């Protein structure tokens, strides 16, 4: 399923089951999906629970008291609500990139009329992130070998970042000139569409499904704003 993975904000578990778990089972990635979703939503979930359980304003049913801090039942309920929402969002996102290769997505968008230059920026960014992390890793190793420590107190760590991040950023910017010339020498500035070698297949039922999802989202939002969904817990 191509470009439409707009998560529902309405959030009940039903949506998760229908929109994330079912297709994941069909695509055979459910195990991976569960692991990655949990990993992805763990920090934010912990944060949500802690913050809301302990700091929920106006909570009256006290569950636990720890010095100046109290845990309330209202906070817990609210936290669970947020948790479900987070799960739905990160589930949808995880499913999206488990089933969609970035390259396919970009080619598909370009075929649908997105400018080749925007497509270039998108795919180059996706490849640049790991490349730059690798480069930072090399520089870190080199700096360590020269006796610069990246462990220790917070302040020392912050100071240690500068000689690592600095060369990465400036080195990358220094290459802009040559990359620019190399691209122009390969006809990059030619206006208009370019030839595509391949694009992902797009079957009829996928198209139908996509339209259905695209329609369902505004319907749900309208329904929620209009208050038709109050019967859902």
């Amino acid at each position, binding site marked *: 399923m191509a470009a439409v993975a707009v998560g529902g904000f309405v959030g009940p578990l039903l949506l998760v089951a229908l929109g994330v778990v079912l297709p994941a089972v069909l695509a055979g990635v459910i195990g991976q999906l569960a692991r990655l979703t949990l990993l*992805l939503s763990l920090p*934010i979930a912990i944060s*949500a629970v802690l913050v809301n359980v302990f700091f929920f304003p106006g909570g009256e049913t006290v569950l636990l008291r720890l010095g*100046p801090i109290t845990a309330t039942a209202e906070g817990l309920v609210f936290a669970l609500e*947020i948790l479900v929402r987070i799960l739905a969002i990160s589930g949808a996102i995880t499913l999206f990139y488990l089933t969609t290769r970035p390259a396919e997505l970009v080619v598909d968008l370009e075929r649908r009329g997105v400018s080749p*230059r*925007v497509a270039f920026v998108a795919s180059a960014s996706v490849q640049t992130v790991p490349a*730059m992390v690798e480069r930072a890793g090399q520089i870190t190793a080199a700096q360590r070998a020269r006796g610069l420590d990246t462990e220790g107190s917070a302040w020392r760590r912050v100071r240690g970042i500068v000689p690592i991040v600095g060369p990465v950023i400036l080195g990358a910017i220094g290459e802009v000139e040559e990359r620019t010339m190399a691209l122009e020498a390969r006809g*990059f500035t030619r206006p208009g569409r370019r030839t595509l070698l391949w694009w992902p297949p797009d079957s009829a039922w996928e198209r139908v499904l996509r339209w259905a999802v695209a329609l369902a989202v505004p319907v749900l939002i309208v329904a929620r704003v209009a208050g038709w969904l109050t019967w859902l817990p």
Partner: protein
Amino acid sequence: MIVRWIAALVAFLVVAGVGLVAFGNFSTGIDPGSFFDSEGANSFALILAVALVLAFFVYAVVEYLQTGSFASISRQFDTRTIVLMPLAIAFNIILGQAVGAALKIPIYLDSIGTILVGALAGPIPGALTGFLSNILWTYVVPPPFNSGIAAAFAVVAAVIGILAGLFGRAGWLRPRPDRPMRDLFAGGVVALAVVGFLAYYAYTRFYGTTFEFFNPDNTDLLFSLLGWLILLLFVAFVVGFIGLLFVRRDLTVAYVVIAGVITGSVAALISAPIAANVFSGVTGAGTDFLVAAFRQAGSDIQTATLQQGLLSDPVDKMVTFFTVYLILNAMARRTKARFPQGERLLDDGDDEVLDDLETPPSPQGAPA
């Protein structure tokens, strides 16, 4: 040209108007304590941001209808800018993710690339860099560099890019080295006045009812700590700023500070309603504890996210603008000059003439 601007303006007004009437939430009324309706103000900023983005689309469409191309826009997208943008997006994502995940501090550092592109290439590439960064960060980049929340803030990132582009275009980031003491002094005073005014305004408007620095009735330990922390931050800022200004003797430091504080305030206004409505104030980052603290003190969720934003964002954007300024200073003059907006980042101290000219400035090099 004029038609385009008028069309964009009309679109902006229409969308803003419709948005405010239909979705603006003024039902909470004005709080007699602060003379302020925080929920109303929150949706206000978000609607204006959306209207701004739509107005830009209208501008582009009208230009296309008129001329059959996007010349005034595509001029800002030469190959050099296109090559820089992926790098900038990678800076944003990597630094933002590293700061958000590893260091639990209430700033983000996820807009260095956006502001760099804005300054060098212009408002529109800046906006696109910010927007794409946040979208890719959520939907395309695989873990561990993936953030579930970034895409919701894409509009904020776009506005940051626009502002950076405008500051760059206005020449705010051009070096002004070795100015006389008098200028530096004046610049410092003006910058401190602007920052102080904004801080005072924000404090009285948004924080006054929630907590007071050193209120004798305040029994809450957390708030005494928070008060001290904020005070400390402020003192550190003033000292650091004055130090920089006079050590570097570069008047631009003052401009950088003002640009950062303004950008940060705008970003806070736009992002607060998103954080409140989409994520209930919880984003898994170091800023969460601030939000929680404000809610504990009695703010509702809308106000709490705004209070957090107005605390974190100006500091964050100031640090970011300063970093970008350092990067620009480290770049070769001729490299900067070739970007669409690069000549506005050069100091005027050097009388070297760029580009045109049949006879070079020095007699020795004249081609026969």
